[in-house]
C-alpha cells in the first residue's frame, strides 16, 4: 500500500508539474549570477551550469520519464500479448516458427541494439523513444503469454466455448486471454520500473530525450562532468529515480503476491 501511495503521488506530481514548478524548466535564469548554485531557499535543488532551476527540471522531467515508461510498456505488452497468444493457441508448426523467431531476437543484446538504433536516428523525441523501447520489449512478454495460453487452452471451458460455436478468435481473445491477464499485469508493472531505469540510462548517455527538454537521465548528465562540485545535480534526479522505481517494484511484488493463490496466505 505504501508503494502504491508513492506511485500515485509521483504520477500526480508529474501531471501537475507545470503548475507547481517554481520556474520555467528550460529558462536560463541568469547565466552570470545564477549558474551552478548549491541548494538554497529560492532553489531547493540548486541550479545547473546553464543557470536553470534543478527542482523545476526534475519535476518536468518526471513527465517524460513516466510517459515513456508507461507508453512503451503498453506498446510492448500489447504486441507481446497478441504474438504470444497466437503462438500458444495455434500450437504446432506456427508456434515453433513464431517462438524460434523470438529466441533469435532475444539473443540480440537489447541495450546495444537500442544504442545503435537511437544513435542512427538523429533527433530523438519522446515518441521515438516509446516506439523503440516498446518494439524491443515485447519478446519476453510474448513468451510469458504463450506459456499461459498453452496451459489454458486445454481447459474444459475452452472446449465448452468451442462446443457452443465460438470462433477461434473469440475463444482466444474473449475466453483465454482474460484468464491469462494477471501475470501479464504483474510483468508489465515490473516492466515499467525497468524502462524508467533504461530511459534514464539512455538519456544519461545522450541517446534519449534531447536537451533542453528535461528528463531524469539528462538532468543528471548535465552535472556529470563536475559531479564532486555539483553533487546536487546528480543526487536529486537520482533520488527521484530511486524512489519511483522502488515504489513501482513494491507495487509489482504486491500484485504478484495477490495474483498467486499459493502465496496469498503468506502475504
Amino acid at each position, binding site marked *: 500500500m505504501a508503494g502504491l501511495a508513492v506511485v500515485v503521488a509521483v504520477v500526480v506530481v508529474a501531471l501537475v508539474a507545470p503548475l507547481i514548478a517554481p520556474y520555467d524548466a528550460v529558462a536560463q535564469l541568469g547565466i552570470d549570477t545564477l549558474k551552478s548554485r548549491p541548494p538554497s531557499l529560492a532553489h531547493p535543488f540548486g541550479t545547473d551550469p546553464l543557470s536553470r532551476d534543478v527542482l523545476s527540471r526534475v519535476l518536468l522531467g518526471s513527465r517524460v520519464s513516466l510517459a515513456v515508461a508507461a507508453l512503451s510498456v503498453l506498446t510492448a505488452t500489447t504486441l507481446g500479448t497478441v504474438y504470444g497468444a497466437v503462438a500458444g493457441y495455434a500450437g504446432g508448426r506456427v508456434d515453433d516458427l513464431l517462438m524460434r523467431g523470438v529466441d533469435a531476437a532475444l539473443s540480440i543484446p537489447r541495450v546495444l541494439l537500442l544504442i545503435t538504433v537511437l544513435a542512427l536516428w538523429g533527433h530523438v523525441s519522446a515518441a521515438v523513444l516509446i516506439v523503440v523501447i516498446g518494439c524491443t520489449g515485447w519478446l519476453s512478454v510474448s513468451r510469458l503469454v504463450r506459456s499461459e495460453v498453452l496451459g489454458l487452452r*486445454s481447459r*474444459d*471451458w475452452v*472446449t*465448452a466455448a468451442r462446443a*457452443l*460455436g*465460438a470462433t477461434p478468435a473469440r475463444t482466444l481473445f*474473449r475466453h483465454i486471454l482474460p484468464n491469462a491477464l494477471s501475470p501479464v499485469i504483474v510483468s508489465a508493472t515490473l516492466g515499467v520500473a525497468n524502462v524508467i531505469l533504461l530511459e534514464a540510462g539512455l538519456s544519461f548517455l545522450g541517446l534519449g530525450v534531447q536537451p533542453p527538454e528535461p528528463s531524469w537521465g539528462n538532468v543528471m548528465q548535465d552535472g556529470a562532468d563536475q559531479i564532486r562540485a555539483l553533487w546536487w545535480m546528480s543526487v536529486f534526479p537520482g533520488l527521484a529515480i530511486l524512489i519511483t522505481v522502488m515504489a513501482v517494484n513494491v507495487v509489482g511484488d504486491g500484485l504478484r503476491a495477490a495474483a498467486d493463490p499459493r502465496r496469498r496466505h503468506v502475504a
Partner: protein
Amino acid sequence: MSAGLATPASAAPLLSVRDLRTSFRTDSGCARAVDGVSFSLRTGETVCIVGESGCGKTALALSLLRLLPPTATIAPGSSVEFEGRDLMALDASGWRAVRGARIGMVFQDAMTALDPVIRVGDQVAEVVRIHTPAIAPGAAWARAVDLLTLTGIPGPADRAHQYPHELSGGMRQRVMLAIALAMHPALLIADEPTTALDITVQAQILALLGELQRQLGMAILFITHDLGVAAALADRVIVMYAGEVVESAPAELFFAEPHHPYATGLLRALPDLSHPGDRLAVIPGAVPSATDWPRGCRFRERCAFAWSRCEAEHPPLYAISAGHESRCHLAAEPGRRVVTAASTA
C-alpha cells in the same frame, strides 16, 4: 431444405453414426479409443451410453462434435449424419453453425467447464449472440435470464450477475444446461453431467432434464457409468466396452434380459439394498489398454464364459431379438451359458 427430397422426418433418424473410429497418438502407440461404433438416435429419443472409465464414451461424445485434441484423428471411413447432413464433411464455419445451435453439449464438471472470469449471465448470453448476431445486447441478456429461469435457478436475475465460483455445483450445472439449451437444439449431448454432483442434486438435474426434454422435444445422448441413471432416463441403452458397442437394447429389455456377460456383470455390481451387508459383486480385472486391444473378444480375459472361440474370433454384433444386439459368441451357442453356470456353481 426441400421437403420433397428428404425422407419423412419420422423415418429418418436424427443422428446416424456408422463405423466411427477415433484414435489418439500416444507415447505408447496409437490408442484406438472409439473402434467402429454405430448407432442411431430418433427425434425426441433418449439413448444412454454406458460403460466404465476408459471404454471410449467421452472420446465418442467429443468425436460427434469434433472437439477432439489435435492428437486425435477420425478414420476416413467414419460417417456421422445429423439432420440429413454429413457432419464429417463440414468445414469450420459449418461446424460453428451446428455446435451450440443444433447440438448442445453439457460437460461432466460444470466447475471447470464455465469460464471463471465471465459472469454466468454473459456466458449464457454469449451463445445467443453467437447464433443470432443481430440481437441487441440487452435482448440477449434478457434471453439469458429467461433461460436461467427455465433451468430452475432461484433468483435468476441476480444470479446472472455472479461468477461461476459464487454458485453451487448444482447451480453451475443448471447454467451449463441453460447454455446448451439456449438455441433449442435438436440434440443434447450430456457427458456424465451429474457425476460431480451429490445424489439429491443429481436427482433434481435428471428430473429437470426429463422435463425440459418434454418441453423442447429434443433427443438426448446421455453418457454415464451409472446404470441407475440410465434406468431412470433411457429409451435405449448402449453398452460400450473397449471402444466398441457390446450390447444395444431398448431400456426395459436391457434391464430385464441383459445378454452380454459384461452387461450382466455391470448390473450385478449394483448394490442391492434389499440385501444389506452382502459383498458387492465385481468384474475381475480392468479395461485393457486402448493401444493394444486383445485378439478375439476384448472382454474374454475378464469373462467367466470365455472359451476357445472367444480367442480365435472377434465376435460380431449378434441380433438377439428385434432391436436387441450383443457382441458375444454366446448368442450363437446359447447352451454354453448354462453349462458354465452349472460348472462354476
